[in-house]
């Protein structure tokens, strides 16, 4: 009888209901406004077209707020007795065990959170029954919602209880809860982007934040409308609920009651907190000053950030701003020594990261491309992005070795085009992967290696998704890249013509050369292929560039009388103005900007191109963007104009001569 009474204590329950019942009430009112009431409002609004398929279509933001906010509040209030010294003393002088106190508070909290959700679900099902517009909202939808809402509410509740055991201040409980929930994602992206600053070849895009964020409860909540939780996530959160509860119990048993009102209640955690804050602040400071592009400022950011973080952490722990003592600086000095050593290790590549190229016999497959996200996506979709061809493996490996040996300096860049980034990834025999990413390498230094890779069939079929060209295509559209210049765009639906075009494109891509692959701005526009599906929604499409070097396509279009509809032609050009601005595009600034800043401001001279042949040549070779020593302004009949850049060898010598 005695032990039973000590575990579930009606006195505590009654007191909790009296003292904290308002939280449950707020939760209930919040839910009623967010769901059933909102449903009535939506349904009564006759002008609105409703498409409600699940509960998150009704409201999203308020739901997130309720699931993440109120449970945290409930935990803070229910466990406030632990954080107020007088209350903590009184409650713990009572004849009741800590596990029983915890149990009773958790029961109260669970009731406060679960009952409103159940009542809301009942109200929702009543409302959805009353209005036919909610026909798509099935009982399963509602039950699913009940499950997720309870799970997430309990997760936030128990996690906050757990955090409350670590800290002795109610406000800190709330702040620390959200910091800890965001920390893994934040820290991950901070470390990721900082490593990219120092490790030549480190790919910060491969393991990106988005991927890490799917385990952040707050992110999961905000995305419930777009994607429902996976079974793995559900199990993960159930585990997190249980672990949080168990951890809270263990910490509670070891917690000293006198630590109420202290920032961090466990002495062992204080240095972790202190140096953790210092470290995060340091990384943030470094990243912030990285935008000014000088290593000196980055180091300044590190020092400044770490000092600020260290002092703030110390002030929080000591609960005073007057923390400046000799010993304090000793602690910081110790931290600084460790970080400098770590920095030296990373910077001098003590782990052989920058130099590592796997041996040929260790390589199972290889990927070469321009976007690490492709790899990430392939992982998610369980596709294999790696190519097993031995010749290709050898060529990519050779290129990688050249890069690793020469380590050419990455060029500064304002704009990035796809081919400025090289991603090299290996699938290794031992099942591991190795991913490297290089940006803005000067192509001259690695030309032969790069050429060998880019002109491989394997690369082209991946980059241009060649296998799709073999599929049945229902229509082809030519989309010019200068809007408004060609109207209307060409659309081909004749099956025979489409098949001819598919063959021509296959040929063009298989014969496109290294320079033209890299010169992605030298295009007339895009060619869009539509692959029919069973329904309109399933219709897919893919784009291929209409590169200016695709002469066979030009010929075919001309023969069929489509050329003028498919792209701009020289006949539409009124005037061409060209200027020699050496190195201006080195940072990949856009031609229009260079033209405006240099030529129109009178900093660089320009000449009009009058010779028809020269005009034609320039028109057929200029790029919309990319590096080049010449910039051009092309004016069409009417007021339209476009700007572009040209590399030295693309400009006729007679024009080059005019600038000497």
């Amino acid at each position: 009888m005695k032990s039973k009474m000590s575990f579930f204590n009606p006195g505590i329950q009654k007191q909790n209901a009296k003292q904290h019942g308002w939280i449950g009430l707020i939760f209930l009112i919040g839910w009623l406004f967010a769901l059933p009431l909102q449903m009535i409002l939506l349904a009564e609004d006759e002008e609105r077209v409703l498409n409600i398929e699940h509960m998150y279509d009704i409201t999203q933001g308020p739901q997130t707020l309720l699931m993440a906010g109120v449970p945290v509040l409930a935990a803070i209030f229910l466990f406030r007795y632990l954080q107020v010294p007088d209350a903590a003393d009184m409650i713990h002088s009572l004849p009741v065990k800590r596990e029983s106190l915890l149990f009773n508070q958790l029961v109260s909290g669970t009731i406060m959170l679960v009952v409103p959700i159940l009542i809301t679900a009942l109200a929702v099902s009543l409302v959805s029954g009353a209005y036919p517009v909610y026909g798509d909202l099935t009982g399963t939808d509602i039950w699913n919602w009940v499950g997720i809402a309870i799970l997430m509410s309990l997760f936030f509740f128990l996690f906050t209880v757990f955090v409350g055991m670590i800290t002795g201040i109610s406000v800190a409980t709330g702040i620390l809860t959200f910091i800890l929930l965001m920390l893994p994602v934040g820290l991950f992206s901070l470390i990721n982007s900082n490593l990219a600053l120092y490790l030549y070849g480190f790919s910060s895009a491969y393991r990106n934040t988005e991927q890490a964020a799917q385990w952040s409860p707050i992110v999961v909540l905000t995305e419930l409308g777009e994607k429902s939780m996976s079974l793995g996530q559900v199990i993960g959160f159930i585990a997190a609920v249980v672990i949080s509860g168990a951890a809270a119990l263990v910490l509670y048993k070891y917690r000293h009651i006198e630590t109420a009102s202290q920032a961090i209640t466990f002495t062992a955690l204080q240095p972790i907190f202190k140096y953790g804050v210092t470290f995060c602040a340091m990384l943030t400071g470094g990243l912030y000053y990285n935008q000014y592009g000088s290593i000196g400022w980055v180091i300044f950011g590190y020092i400044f950030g770490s000092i600020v973080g260290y002092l703030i952490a110390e002030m929080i722990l000591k609960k005073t701003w007057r923390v400046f003592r000799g010993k304090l600086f000793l602690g910081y000095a110790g931290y600084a020594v460790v970080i400098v050593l770590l920095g030296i290790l990373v910077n001098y590549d003590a782990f052989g990261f920058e130099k590592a190229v796997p041996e040929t016999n260790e390589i199972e497959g290889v990927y070469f491309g321009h976007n690490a996200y492709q790899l990430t996506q392939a992982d998610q979709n369980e596709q294999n992005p790696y190519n097993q061809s031995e010749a290709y493996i050898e060529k990519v490996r050779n290129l990688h070795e050249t890069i690793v040996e020469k380590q050419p300096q990455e060029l500064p860049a304002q704009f990035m085009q796809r081919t400025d980034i090289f991603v090299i990834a290996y699938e290794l025999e031992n099942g591991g992967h190795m991913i490297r990413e290089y940006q803005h390498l000067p192509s001259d230094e690695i030309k032969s290696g790069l050429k060998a890779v880019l002109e491989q069939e394997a690369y082209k079929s991946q980059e241009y998704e060649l296998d799709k060209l073999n599929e049945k295509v229902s229509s082809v559209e030519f989309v010019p890249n200068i809007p408004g210049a060609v109207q209307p765009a060409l659309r081909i639906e004749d099956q025979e013509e489409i098949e001819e075009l598919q063959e021509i494109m296959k040929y063009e891509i298989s014969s496109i050369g290294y320079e033209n692959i890299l010169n992605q701005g030298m295009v007339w526009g895009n060619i869009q292929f539509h692959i029919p599906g069973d329904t309109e929604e399933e219709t897919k499409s893919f784009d291929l560039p209409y590169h200016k070097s695709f002469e066979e396509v030009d010929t075919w279009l001309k023969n069929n009388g489509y050329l003028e509809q498919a792209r701009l032609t020289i006949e539409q050009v009124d005037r061409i103005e060209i200027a020699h601005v050496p190195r201006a595009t080195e940072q990949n600034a856009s031609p229009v900007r260079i033209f405006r800043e240099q030529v129109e401001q009178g900093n660089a001279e320009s000449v009009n191109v009058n010779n028809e042949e020269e005009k034609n040549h320039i028109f057929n070779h200029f790029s919309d963007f990319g590096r080049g020593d010449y910039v051009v302004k092309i004016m069409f009949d009417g007021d339209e104009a476009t700007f572009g850049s040209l590399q030295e060898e693309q400009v006729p010598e007679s024009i080059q001569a005019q600038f000497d």
Partner: protein
Amino acid sequence: MIQVRNLTKTFEKEIAVENLNLTVQQGSIYGLLGSNGAGKTTLLKILAGIYRPDHGSVHINEQPIYENVPLKQDVVFIPDNPYFLPQATIKQMAAYYRSFYPNWNEQRYEKLQEVFQIDPKRKIQRLSKGMKRQVAFWLSLATMPEVLILDEPIDGLDPVMRQKIKNLLFQDIAERELTVIISSHNLREIEDICDHVGIMHEGTLRIEKELDELKSDTHKVQAAFESEETKDKMAAGLNILHEEKRGSVYLFIVRGDRKEIERKVRPYQPLVFDMLPLTLEEIFIYEMGGIGYEIENVLL
């Protein structure tokens, strides 16, 4: 019976209680004296099972108190600033206590209302400091404790109420062998109720004494003699703790039986002879001798 063995408790790096030993017999009232910061409150909170000691043990009736629910049902702690649940009335608070203490005595609770004369429907937070303390006593006594731990309980009570509470304590001690440990920084406040006194200073228990024994054993003697030599001869035969001269009259603090002292002094034919009782405060100051300077600060 309360037994404390080698108790040590530190807060971060500050030592609050250091290697402390203490025994309180059942049915006695133990006065714990000490200046602010001596470690009294910490000791009492460990005795009440609130704080967990770093080293050493606390046993009440031969059982450890920490997280011991059946034992804590018989032990009640009243802090120097009693805490009550927010917005609670006395009646609600009584119901709350009732759910924790199986020995709760409703009759006693109702009877005590006559003593304290406060309307049980009043919200405790609105009461004065002294009244809150009365409520704390009221609720605590209604749980029928075996051990009562009181931290500076007399502060803020008017003399009449002090007497009433003292009487209640005496009554429980006599009837049920209640054990009381009571802390104060002022000896005068508790000297009339304690039978044992301990003095804490800087985390340690410096002195532990039984009061009756002390009182009957130490005396203040005022005497004048014809010559210095006579005085010296007389003094040689006595256990003198303290001696001073005021004009021609000597003041001695002497330990020993009253009659025995008189028998020893008379033969020297003192010109003036007077024997006076000592206040407890004086006894302590003189008794402590060497460490008296510390204790003096504590007591006055």
